C-alpha cells in the first residue's frame, strides 16, 4: 500500500502524532481528512494498491461509487469532529481518532475480505481508546466490554471469510448473500457492528461512556462502515428488511425512556440504522441510494446532535435530561444547532433528512414492502418523540434547571455551525449528494405531496407532544438508568460465573486429591514393605532365603517336568 492511499495517510499521521506538541496535533487532525479527501478523489474507479501477503492478493483501494460515498462522508465527518475536538490535549485520544478514522476509510475501500477484516479489527482497537481516554473505572470496564464485542465481530468475520474461502477459493468482497455457513458468519459479523436487534446493546452501552469528543467520533464510523459492508455483500437480502424494521421500531421505545441524552441519541442512532438496513435489504438501486444517502446525512445530523450534547456536557458536567433545562438562555448557538440537527433527523423540509429518508421509504413502497414502510413511518414519527422534539425542548427550553453555562468554545461552535450548515445545504440543494451516490438518481423529494405529508406528520406530532405535555402525561425524567439486554453479560453471567468456576475448581481439586490420595496410599503401602528394615529391604535370614529357593525350585521343576 502506498503512503498516499487514504488510510495510510491517517496511519502515518497517527505515527507523527506521537511526537507532535498539542497544538500541532490538533492541526494535524484537521488537515489529515483534507489530504484524505484529495487522495480519495485522485483514485480512478477500479482496484488499486494490491499487495501479496501469505499468498493472498490484498487490494487496499477499490474505488467505486459506493466506496467513494462512504469514504467522502467519513473524511468530512472526521474533519468536523477534529474541529470539534480542537481543544483536546489527550494524545491517546487523538491518535485513536486518527487510526479509527483511517481504519474505517480503509474498510470501506477494502477490495477483499481479508483487508476488510484487518481494518475491521483496527477500528475496534482504535475506537476503544475514545472510551478509555475518559480514564474512569466505569469507562475502562465499558471499553473492555465494547472491545470484546467488537473483536467478536471481527473474529466471526475472520471465521466466515475463511469458510467462504474454503468453499469458493475466493476472498473477493462482492455480493455474498446468506448462502453458506461462511457467508452466514460474515453476515452476523456485520450485524454486530450494525447493531442488529439483540446484538445492539454494545452501542448504547459504550457510546455514552466515551469522552465528549470521542462519542462524536464514535457515532460516525463503526455503524456506517457496517452498513456499507452490508450493502456491498448482502444487498437485496430480504431478512434485512425485517431486521431493519425491528431495529427502527425497537430503538424508538428504548430511546424515549432514557435519561442520559447521549444514550437517547445512541438508541436514536440505531433507529436511523434501521432505515439504512431496510434500504440495503430491499436492494433496488433506489433503495441502495437511499441507504447510502441516509448514511451520509445521518452521519452529519447525528454527529451534530452528539456535538450539541457534548457541548452541554462540556459546560455543565452532565448530559442527563433530569438535570438539564432552559440552557437556551446562555447557549443560544448550541441550541440553534441542536434545532437544526433535530429538524434534519425528523426530516423537516429543507433539512438533510428530508431528502434522504424519503428515498428509502419510497423504495419500500415501490417494491411492495408495506410492513417495512409502516415500520419506518412509525419510526420516523418516533424520532420526534425521543430526539427531535424531546432533546431540544428538555435541554434548551422547557423547565429551567437553573444552570447558566457559557456558550460553547469557539472551535466547538464552529464545528457545530459548519455541520448544521451542511445539513441545511444538503436539504436545500441535494444534487451534489445525489451525484455522489453510486446509482443514477431520478428522484426529487420536493414534490407537493411529499411536502404535505411530511408537514402533516410533523405538525400533528408536535400537536400531540404539546397536548400530552399540557395534560402532564409525559413521564418526568429521573436520575435512573434502564435495563437492556446487556444485563445478560453484565449481571447474569457474572452472577453465574462463581458457581461455575467454583464447581470446576471443585472437580479439579477432587481429581487432584484423588490422584494424590491414590499416590500417597500407594506410597504408604509400598513403604510398609519396602522401607529400610521392612520385609523387602532387609537382609533375609538364611532360612527365609532357603525357603524362597525351594519354592522357586518347586515351581521350576513342576513346570518343566509336567
Amino acid at each position, binding site marked *: 500500500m502506498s503512503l498516499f492511499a487514504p488510510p495510510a495517510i491517517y496511519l502515518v499521521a497517527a505515527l507523527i502524532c506521537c511526537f507532535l506538541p498539542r497544538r500541532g496535533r490538533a492541526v494535524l487532525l484537521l488537515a489529515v481528512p483534507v489530504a484524505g479527501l484529495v487522495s480519495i478523489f485522485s483514485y480512478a474507479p477500479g482496484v488499486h494498491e494490491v499487495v501479496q501477503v501469505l499468498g493472498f492478493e490484498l487490494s487496499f483501494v477499490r474505488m467505486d461509487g459506493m466506496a467513494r460515498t462512504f469514504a467522502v462522508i467519513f473524511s468530512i465527518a472526521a474533519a468536523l469532529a477534529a474541529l470539534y475536538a480542537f481543544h483536546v490535549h489527550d494524545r491517546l485520544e487523538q491518535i485513536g481518532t486518527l487510526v479509527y478514522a483511517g481504519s474505517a476509510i480503509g474498510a470501506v475501500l477494502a477490495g477483499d475480505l481479508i483487508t476488510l477484516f484487518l481494518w475491521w479489527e483496527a477500528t475496534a482497537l482504535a475506537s476503544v481508546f475514545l472510551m478509555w481516554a475518559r480514564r474512569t473505572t466505569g469507562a475502562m470496564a465499558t471499553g473492555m466490554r465494547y472491545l470484546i464485542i467488537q473483536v467478536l465481530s471481527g473474529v466471526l468475520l475472520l471465521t466466515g471469510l475463511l469458510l467462504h474461502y474454503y468453499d469458493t477459493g475466493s476472498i473477493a468482497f462482492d455480493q455474498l448473500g446468506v448462502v453458506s455457513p461462511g457467508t452466514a458468519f460474515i453476515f452476523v459479523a456485520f450485524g454486530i457492528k450494525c447493531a442488529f436487534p439483540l446484538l445492539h446493546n454494545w452501542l448504547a452501552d459504550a457510546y455514552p461512556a466515551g469522552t465528549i469528543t470521542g462519542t462524536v467520533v464514535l457515532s460516525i464510523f463503526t455503524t456506517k462502515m457496517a452498513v456499507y459492508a452490508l450493502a456491498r455483500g448482502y444487498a437485496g437480502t430480504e431478512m434485512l428488511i425485517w431486521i431493519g424494521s425491528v431495529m427502527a421500531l425497537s430503538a424508538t421505545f428504548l430511546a424515549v425512556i432514557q435519561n442520559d441524552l447521549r444514550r437517547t441519541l445512541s438508541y436514536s442512532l440505531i433507529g436511523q440504522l434501521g432505515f439504512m438496513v431496510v434500504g440495503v435489504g430491499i436492494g433496488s438501486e433506489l433503495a441502495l441510494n437511499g441507504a447510502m444517502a441516509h448514511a451520509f446525512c445521518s452521519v452529519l445530523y447525528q454527529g451534530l446532535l452528539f456535538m450539541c450534547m457534548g457541548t452541554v456536557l462540556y459546560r455543565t458536567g452532565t448530559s442527563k435530561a433530569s438535570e438539564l433545562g432552559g440552557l437556551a438562555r446562555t447557549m443560544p448557538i448550541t441550541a440553534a444547532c441542536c434545532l437544526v440537527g433535530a429538524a434534519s433527523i425528523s426530516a423537516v423540509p429543507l433539512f438533510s433528512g428530508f431528502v434522504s429518508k424519503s428515498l428509502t421509504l419510497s423504495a419500500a413502497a415501490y417494491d411492495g414492502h408495506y410492513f417495512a414502510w409502516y415500520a419506518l413511518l412509525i419510526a420516523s414519527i418516533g424520532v420526534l418523540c425521543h430526539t427531535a422534539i424531546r432533546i431540544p425542548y428538555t435541554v434548551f427550553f422547557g423547565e429551567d434547571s437553573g444552570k447558566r453555562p457559557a456558550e460553547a468554545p469557539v472551535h466547538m461552535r464552529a464545528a457545530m455551525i459548519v455541520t448544521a450548515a451542511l445539513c441545511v445545504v444538503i436539504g436545500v440543494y441535494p444534487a451534489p449528494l445525489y451525484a455522489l451516490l453510486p446509482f443514477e438518481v431520478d428522484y426529487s423529494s420536493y414534490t407537493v405531496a411529499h411536502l404535505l405529508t411530511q408537514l402533516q406528520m410533523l405538525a400533528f406530532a408536535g400537536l400531540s407532544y404539546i397536548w400530552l405535555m399540557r395534560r402532564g402525561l409525559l413521564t418526568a425524567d429521573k436520575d435512573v438508568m434502564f435495563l437492556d439486554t446487556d444485563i445478560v453479560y453484565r449481571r447474569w453471567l457474572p452472577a453465574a460465573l462463581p458457581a461455575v468456576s467454583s464447581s470446576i475448581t471443585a472437580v479439579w481439586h477432587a481429581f487432584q486429591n484423588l490422584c494424590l490420595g491414590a499416590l500417597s496410599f500407594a506410597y504408604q503401602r*509400598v*513403604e510398609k514393605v*519396602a*522401607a*529400610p528394615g*521392612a520385609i*523387602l*529391604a532387609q*537382609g*533375609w*535370614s*538364611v532360612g*527365609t*532365603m*532357603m525357603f*524362597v*529357593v525351594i519354592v*522357586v*525350585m518347586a*515351581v*521350576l*521343576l513342576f*513346570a*518343566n*517336568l509336567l
Partner: protein
Amino acid sequence: MSELSVSTAGQIPALQIIVPMLAAPLCVLVRNARASWLIALAASGVSTVTAWLLVLHVGEHEPIRYALGGWLPPTGIEYYIDTLNATMLLLVSGISTVALVYARESIASSISSDRQYLFYTSWLLCITGLMGIAITGDAFNVFVFLEISSIATYSLIAFGKDRQALIASFRYVVMGSVGASFILLGIGFLYAATGTLNMVDLAARIPVTESPRAVLVAFSFLTIGLMIKAAIFPLHAWLADAYHRAPIAATAFLAGTATKVSLYVLMRFFYSMFGVDYSFGSLFLNWVLLPAAVGGFVIMSLVAVFQTDLRRMLAFSSVAQIGYIVAGIALATQAGLTAGIVHIVNHGVIKAALFMAVGCILLRAGHVHRPSLDSLYRRMPFTCTAFLLAGFGLVGIPLTAGFVSKFQLIQALLERGLWPIVVLVLASSLLAVVYVGRVIEIMLFREGRSSEGAASGGVEHGHSTGIHEAPLTMLVPMYALLALMFWIGINGEVTLDLAGEAARQLLEGMRVLTPGGVS
C-alpha cells in the same frame, strides 16, 4: 595386532588367568599394603591389556579354542573365547583395574594397613575366579572358578568395617554355597547324561542324549543355582547386605562384575550349551526368567526409592537393573540378547561409578545416610557431579550408556509385541528418576541442616564438619568410568555392534572348531 601367532602371543588366553593367579600369593609374600596394592594393580592391568587384545582378535576372527597346557579336550581343559567372553573379560579386568586405583585411599581408611595385603590377595583371587569363569570352555571348570571367586568374595565382604559385615558375609556364604552346589549337581547330571564336561561337546551331545530326564534335572538345578549367583529376583536377598557391608571399593568392583559374570554363565549354558530351542522352546525358560525380571525391576526399584542408605539403595537398584538384563536375555531374540549383553557392560560401568561416588562421600562424610547429605554439593562438588552424571546414566538420559541399553531393550520388547512390559520398564525408569532425584535434590538444594547440627554440636551421623573434596586418586578413576559411560552413550553403535555379534554367536550355538586357537 590382528595376527596372534601360536608361539608367542597365542598364549594370551592363559596369561589372562595365570597373571592374577600368580600375583595373589605374591601379595601374601610381600605382606606390605602398598606393595601388594601395586602388585594387584599391575596384575589387573596386564589382564586388562590381554583382554583388550582378545577383544580385538575375536572381533575379526573365529572364536578361539585354547587347550590349556596342550592337553586337548576331552582330556584337558579348554578355553573357549568368542566375542561374549572377550567382552566379559575386558569388563571384569577393566573395572577391577579402575577400582583398584580407586581402592587404595578408600581401603586405607577402613582396613588397618597390616591386613590390607590380604584384601588385595582376595581381590586378585576374585578376579582370577571371575575371569576363569568367563574364559573357560569346560563346564566343571566353571564350577571350580565359581568357587574360587565366591570364596574370595566372601572374604572381601568380611573385610567390611563392622560386625554386620561378618553376618552379611556369612549369609552370602550360605546362599553362595547353596547356589554353587546346585550348579555342581546340575553339571553332575549333565556329565551323567552325556559323559563330557566340555561345553562344545555338551552342546553337541545334549540334543541326542539318551537320558533327557537327567538333562532336564540338570537344567533346573543350573537355573536355580545361576539365579542365586546372579541375584535374580526373588533369589537376590543376599546381595543388599553384601554390597552394603563390604568395603566400598570392593562393592564398586563386585557390583560391576560379579553378578554379571554369573549372568554370562547363564547365557553360556542356556544358549550355547542347551541351545536356544531347548531352553526357550521346549522348556519355556522365558516363563521363569521373564516374570522374575519384571518382578525384579519393578519391585526392586520401588524398594530402592525408600532406602535411606545410599549403598542399599544402589544395591536394590542393581537387582532391578539385573532384571533389565534378564528381560533381554529371556526374550531369546537377537535384539533382546543384544540389549541384555550391552546392558551388562553399561550397567557394570554405571554402577561401579555410582558406588565409587558413594565411596568418596563415605570417606569424607563418614556416612551415606541420604537425609543427612544436605548441601553436600558445596563441599564435594566433583563427587556430587559424578554422582549426578552417573545417576543420569542409571536413569537412561540420552548421551549416557544407560540410554543405549534401554533403547535397545524397549525396541526388543516391542519387536516381540510385549508392550505391557515396555510400560513396566518405563515405570521403573521413572522410579529410577525418583530415587536418584531424591539424592540429587538433597545434595544440591537442601540447605545446611547438617551444618546447623554441627554448630550445635549434635551431629547424628559422624563428622560433617570439615567435609571436603575426595582425593584425586579416587576422583580420577571415577571420572574415567564416567568418560567411558559417555563415550559408550555417544558412540553407542560400537558397543551395540559388539553385543550384537556376541548375541549372534550365542544364538548360533557353539561351533566345533579345530582346537588350538586360530587355524
